[in-house]
């Protein structure tokens, strides 16, 4: 096996792999995450999460930033973010390092 199944850790730095990207879909007035043969329409919170995925911020920093910006309880944000990122990981739409 070349790679192991990954589980997110608060100190890891998620990034979008090559071939996965955010774009504005003007015709339908929405933002989508494009990946091979897949289009995922994102709601506002998902856009906020994906916009913070840059390979530099750690998972903990992403959650901190969202909790501050949305003035929401950190543990509530953390559950949403981890569930969403885990879903991306399993679809091979996310990489993590460190």
């Amino acid at each position, binding site marked *: *096996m*070349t*790679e*192991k*199944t*990954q589980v997110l850790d608060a100190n890891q730095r998620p990034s979008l*792999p*090559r*071939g*996965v*990207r955010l*774009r504005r*879909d003007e*015709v*339908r007035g929405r933002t*989508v995450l*494009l*990946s*091979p*043969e897949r*289009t995922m329409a994102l709601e506002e919170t998902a856009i906020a999460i994906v916009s913070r995925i840059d390979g530099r911020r750690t998972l903990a920093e992403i959650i901190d930033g969202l909790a501050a910006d949305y003035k929401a309880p950190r543990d509530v944000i953390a559950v949403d973010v981890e569930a969403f990122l885990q879903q991306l*990981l*399993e*679809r*091979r739409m996310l990489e993590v390092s460190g």
Partner: protein
Amino acid sequence: MDQPSPAAGINPPMAMLAELTHRCPLACPYCSNPLELKQQANELSTGDWVRVLGEAAALGVLHVHFSGGEPASRRDLVDLTKAASEIDLYTNLITSGIGLTERRMNDLVQAGLEHVQLSIQGTDAAEADHVAGYKGGHSRKMDVARWVRSHDLPLTINAVCHRQNIDHLQRTIDLSVQLGAQRLEVATVQFHGWAARNRAALMPTRQQDAEARRIVVAAREQLKGVLVIDYVPADYHATYPKACMGGWGRIGLNVDPTGRVLPCHAAESIDGLEFDNVRDKPLADIWCSGEAFNAFRGFDWMEEPCRSCERKAIDFGGCRCQAMAMAGNARATDPVCSKSPMHASLLDTVAELETGSSPPPLVYRGR
């Protein structure tokens, strides 16, 4: 921007399959292209394709799949990839790998290529080259996979499965992991085009299908986060038909090498459909008001048992081309559906194919 009218209830397409050419160095006995291939002299020019890509993007297309035939047989593949990328289309190359070199792959990546879907015909050279009818093909494919991954580009392996190779599914999965693929698409042969001629030699048995499902379920669990596996069983073995194309004229469109716009890959097998050409009309007009696109759009065209079926918005009555081929009527319920009046005779046919202990020899395209 020329947009479809929301009042018409027609959503814009998400994806365009750009069939750049019907030319292909391989001779696969299950080729899904039409029996009559389009000649090179009639292919759209580079300029035509660039215009069509622009029209597609304005209409709402997000993904463009360069396909064929073998798209690498077109000398302007890099230019077309660049043109698509510049207008923010997600570019996918569906290729056999033949006609690509390391340098050309570099150029494609530079031009903005985002994903490669590479077909394999087997897991070793002897088996694969026998099926493809092309010596040295398998070895080149292994090179292509390496080049794709050396650029860190996502790679999907596409393995058409059939009676003669489905027992090697585990090896196909292992090979995909070795090649660094993110996704493996194992699709049973679709019995259209050339494949229909070889149906008896290619139709997997029910037992083979059950074993394949077992392997896929186990591998998905074991390879979670490593390899995504899509398995498309033979619909002959199913209870309900596939939602062919996700519904006619709902999600995607195909532009053939000569510029004709088809609601699905095999649509020209349906008698009486008129296909518009991008040389004559804007793509938005063709999508919204073209006769071929409206022929089976929505539910009004349906006959019973589809018309009153609670699954009609799930599978859209199945495949129109299959209804045409087997029932002789493109409006009929897809005969693979258990509710079709033809279903019993289809099951008899499948059973008959399975009893043949040695399948007939393969008939190769163009050989």
